[in-house]
């Protein structure tokens, strides 16, 4: 879980920095990384790597979603009428 979290965290950072249009995918990957990082911290042997994965995933999620998130109620409403 710790390794997976670190890998997903790095992928989400890369998506957030270089492929902003795919923020949704980066956000989903980042959130999965956060969950795995938190669960990975429960194993004392891999706590360090899991914490690194957790932090990378948070940074990646923020980078991806800060550019991507729009007012859900508004966009949903506009989409329904389109």
């Amino acid at each position, binding site marked *: 879980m710790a390794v997976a979290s670190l890998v997903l965290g790095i992928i989400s950072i890369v998506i957030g920095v270089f492929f902003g*249009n*795919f*923020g*949704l*995918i980066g*956000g*989903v990957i980042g*959130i*999965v990384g*956060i*969950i795995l990082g*938190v*669960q990975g*911290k*429960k194993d004392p042997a891999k706590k360090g790597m899991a914490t690194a994965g957790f932090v990378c995933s948070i940074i990646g999620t*923020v980078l991806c*979603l*800060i*550019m*991507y*998130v*729009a*007012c*859900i*109620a*508004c*966009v*949903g*409403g*506009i*989409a*329904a*009428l*389109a």
Partner: protein
Amino acid sequence: MGFQVGSFTIPYYGFFIMLGVAAAAVVGWILIHFFHKEYDDFITLAGCVALGGLIGAKILYLAVSWKKIDFSRITDTEYLSAWLSGGFVFYGGLIGGLAGVFLCWKIFHIQVMEYASVGIPCIPIVHAFGRMGCSAAGCCYGIPYTGAGAITYTESLIAPNGTPLFPVQMTEAVCNLIIAAVLIIYIYRNRNKVRNSLLLYLMLYAPVRFVLEHFRYDDKERGIILELSTSQWISILVFAGAFLYYIIRKRKKITKSL
């Protein structure tokens, strides 16, 4: 609409939502530690809900608009990214969020209702910051109004520019912060009892939303059914459902005690 940081433009809405998530994480941390619960489990639950909500809202949006998708162009990255960033459907997010709660309980064996009843003030906190983002970006705008606190947009892409409007977004933000404060006080006062904080949240927010919908002016963008907006119908259903559930639970308790 956003502000510049170097060569980057940070959208107001995303910025305020992230501020809200940070504020909610701090409040959640305080509440979870006060009730001697695992913060890691709380983060896992929040992550599962966010994940389910995000995926559910997007899947339902794609499902309702699949006829408009040109599958022959799906390999075109610009076309694909336009669909991925095209929109969300609230109900999909709600169903996805609930599925996330269920999966969290099933996979990680976390007592989700215990955590939800303690961490519920985080939702109105994030919502309040989201509404501040709406106010800054100019979406979800209010009716024309010239009294105190009126907002006049000059370069909004969504709200009518040059017309003083009722600050409905900031009003909802303040109401959400008050609801969060009421919930925190309620949770603190009932720290040794069974808490109905989830029901209390729903029963506080639904009437607020119902009333504030009358002050919104973006009806064309959201749809009206029988003189009421979709959100007002949802508010009625949510309030009725929460109230009925509360009454049924109370009756069961009385029957048990007899």
